[in-house]
């Protein structure tokens, strides 16, 4: 349902990945689910939902625009990937020129689909971290991005630089991409995108179950979760002495599962409740007017449409106060850790109710 709200709610069809994979809902079904949740727009994954991918046929476009029109939805974003490795010979991989060419194809496809954005698979995705810095494992770097900017602007499709946990908007990990924007001045070609994973204050019930199955004590895990929510709910009353928490965890009989949860697995450069990487709402507010798109990442929303994982009221208020204008598209992914046990349609519905309540819609 279309509105004039400055912040619009959408759904990335990624959210329904499992129900689509199983064949319980087809493209029409997942679009109907998005519309039923109250979405105004949708993001589509070509690799999952366009049968002729990487090509888009006229027949598909006819169906796509008919369905969107009928459901009163608009196309928002087309998901981009830039895998380079397709050979047994590990010294072979796609060059930067190849990645440039394939990304131009994504931009052209996005335009065909009527999307305003591609979510660019880029090396700043995890901010100052990168999954693997070997060239063969990298995706779009800032040099490729700079070359793409005039093409994106010409096509009227922006490249959204998603910042996803453990990366943070403010960690400097996208400075080379922002430099490309400043050097060219082609701000119509791209910009920063927030993923809610950088705003999480707590884990999900599925992660709790996983810890319990590894021998974790539910009471101790619950205590650590309460401390996590206290520390990362930025209400001015969020001081936590982590050494005291650790001492209490040990006193309660906590072992490696609980201590890894608190402190992070040994030898990893991030992780653990104590060192949680989170962008506070005040910082989100500072960035809000620069953001071009948002992924509303979520793993669990309670039955009453509240959420432990993230402080929605404060973050959505920060986006409003900071002047964000654009889409928040639900990116539900709680299903990935516990296959075939979660009702994705219901979880998306709950998150939309929660976001509408916070935004006053």
């Amino acid at each position: 349902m279309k509105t004039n709200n400055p912040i619009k709610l959408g759904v990335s069809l990624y959210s329904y990945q499992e129900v689509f994979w199983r064949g319980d809902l087809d493209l029409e079904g997942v679009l109907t689910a998005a519309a039923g949740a109250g979405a105004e727009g949708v993001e589509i994954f070509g690799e999952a939902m366009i049968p002729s991918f990487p090509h888009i046929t006229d027949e598909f476009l006819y169906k796509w625009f008919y369905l969107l029109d009928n459901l009163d939805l608009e196309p928002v974003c087309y998901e981009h990937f830039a895998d380079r490795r397709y050979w047994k010979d590990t010294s072979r991989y796609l060059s930067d020129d190849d990645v440039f060419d394939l990304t131009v194809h994504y931009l052209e496809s996005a335009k065909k689909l009527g999307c305003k954005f591609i979510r660019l698979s880029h090396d700043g995705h995890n901010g100052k971290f990168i999954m693997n810095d070997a060239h063969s494992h990298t995706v779009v770097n800032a040099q490729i991005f700079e070359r793409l900017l005039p093409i994106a602007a010409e096509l009227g499709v922006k490249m959204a630089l998603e910042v996803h946990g453990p990366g943070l908007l403010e960690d400097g990990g996208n400075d080379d991409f922002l430099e490309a924007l400043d050097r060219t001045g082609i701000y119509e070609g791209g910009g920063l995108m927030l993923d809610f994973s950088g705003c999480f204050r707590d884990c999900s019930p599925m992660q709790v179950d996983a810890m319990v199955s590894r021998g974790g004590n539910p009471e101790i895990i619950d205590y650590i979760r309460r401390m996590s929510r206290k520390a990362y709910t930025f209400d001015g009353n969020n001081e936590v002495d982590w050494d005291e928490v650790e001492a209490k965890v040990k006193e309660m009989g906590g072992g490696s599962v609980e201590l890894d949860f608190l402190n992070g697995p040994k030898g990893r450069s991030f992780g653990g409740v104590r060192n949680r990487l989170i962008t506070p709402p005040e910082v989100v507010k500072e960035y809000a007017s620069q953001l071009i798109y948002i992924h509303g990442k979520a793993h669990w929303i309670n039955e009453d449409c509240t959420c432990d994982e993230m402080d929605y009221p404060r973050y959505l208020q920060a986006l409003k106060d900071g002047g964000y204008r654009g889409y928040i598209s639900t990116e539900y992914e709680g299903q990935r850790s516990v296959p075939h046990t979660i009702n994705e349609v219901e979880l998306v519905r709950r998150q939309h109710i929660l976001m509408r309540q916070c935004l006053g819609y």
Partner: protein
Amino acid sequence: MQEPIKLLKRTSMGLGANAPKFDKMEDFTRGMSRYNPLLMHDYGRNIYHKGEKIGYALDVRICGYRGLPINAILQLAFEVDGEWIPDECKHIWYEGKKYKFSDIGADKFDNNWYWKYTDYLRVFFEIPGGIDQGIHRVKYGLALRDHYSSVAYCEKDVTIV
């Protein structure tokens, strides 16, 4: 002409580094691997040629949230009733085309030939005599070359006809 942008040095999380060889089933059940019981069809079939069983086939699915080029397959591993199936026996049958497993990632077909997200890929084991009809315990492991270095596995009883 402007100097190219100096790329940032980011802290590597090492994903995909020190990956195992994926030459035994245990390599598919550790680390970031995801278990999914529906990765493999409940039924398989012997393949006959003029009345003789020339092998048998299982139908498997891709993990993750998208289809990928068939050349992105790093390993399709199987253990049937505790027996590891060697790569030399394996063939892929998909969309009317047949290739040896060793043809994957070897310039035998285009990188735009996708294993679609919702499709089963048929894997044929060229084992003369096939397998006895009945219920067999099958383990399936999948490793992909995508930049997440995705790995998944499944173990279940499969009825082979």
